[in-house]
């Protein structure tokens, strides 16, 4: 499963929105359930799933599912295996 699909799956579970209705452009502006609390829950769930820490600057970049997936991909590639 790609990083995008994993991020989408986590967002789907948290926001109670079917995965097939979540696209790269999905954001708090177009998903009703995505409020400030769910945004923080998403950050915490991603940190746990991918075993990484998101800085305040990175949290701020998380504008939609597409940018979140790219951010996680970048961090995973930068992490030595």
């Amino acid at each position, binding site marked *: 499963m790609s990083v995008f699909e994993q991020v989408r799956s986590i967002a789907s579970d948290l926001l109670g929105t079917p995965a097939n209705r979540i696209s790269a452009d999905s*954001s708090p*502006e177009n998903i009703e359930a995505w409020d400030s609390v769910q*945004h923080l*829950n998403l950050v915490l769930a991603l940190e746990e799933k991918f075993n990484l820490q998101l800085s305040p*600057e990175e*949290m701020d970049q998380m504008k939609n599912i597409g940018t979140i997936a790219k951010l996680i991909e970048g961090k995973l590639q930068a992490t030595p295996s």
Partner: protein
Amino acid sequence: MPIVIQPYREEHEPAVAEFNRRLQEASADRDLVFSETAIPHWLPRRGEIPLWNEFFVAVEGSFVRGAYALKHEQIFIRENGLHSVACYHHALSEGIIDRKYASVGGLLVRDALARQPLLYVLGMGGYELPLPRMLKALEFSLIPVPFYFRVVHPRKFFLEMNALRNSRWRALLMDIAAATGTGWLAIKAAQTAATLRGRLADFAAEDVTEFSAWADDLWREAKDAVSMASVRDANTLRILYPAENSHLTRIRVSRNDAAIGWAIVGERRKDQTKFGGMRVGSIVDCWSSPANTLPVVRAATQALEKRGVDLIVSNQTHHAWCRAFEDSGFLKGPSTFIFAASKKLTGLLQPLEEDQKSLHVTRADGDGLPRNF
């Protein structure tokens, strides 16, 4: 443009005023305003005094998108001594009015945690609101702070207590209770029966302008009876309740001329939504050994009743204070006042589950003083 959280400086003041204007335009909540001065009016930093407020702003280019305050203070933890902690308060995010900024609320609280891991939050208005839900996600321990009230003028209480008159039927029943006197009878009977439970030795009470060495003695004598309390020595009390603050009354309670406790009482700002036109007195803060809580509560209650308030309220966690309030005719009401301790602070408070009724938390902790008076 990235959002950066930084200490609030004078140069941010116009952007904070703009931030407030946007929040006020989009919301009916008059409390959604942040300080428009970078230096706090309440508890500004003074030298090395460990009790002070600090403001932070979330800046995006020339815009402020969020802000919060930290009240730095020292707390005493039984068997763990003194620790510097901070209270996170007055957090505001543009996300309240613009979903594009949904990330700001989480950014603010994580920033505060990074600056002071021993963090607590107090108040919040109910578990269902965004901040307590975020704190739960961040593994804070959330504990309700019991709410007590004593009705001084029952008729006015039934007619004006808007927080309870929240349905047509309930309002009608309260109107009937006020008109027939049955409400008066029920409340006075319940309060009198409770008051008779508490056995009370003689005590004297006097208003004082300042706290001095006797308050230090009381702090030392009683602190081991609590599992946690904000420091309440004479120096701290003089900063929290300065002689020039005429809104609050400082009461020294004594027996045979020796101080046995103190209380701070005041009349709250009018709150039409909850209390209608009632005058609401508050027992803001109090301190004594567990054996002397009852005379302190009675002295504070009498002082407020003499002033002519219609209702007296207080929030207390410690079991000895809760008992003294109950034995002084106070009724326990539903509480939306929550104490939340960060994961690291919770670690120091262990065993918190067992000790939560020995925490000493009152309305004076957190940002209760400027918010309510």
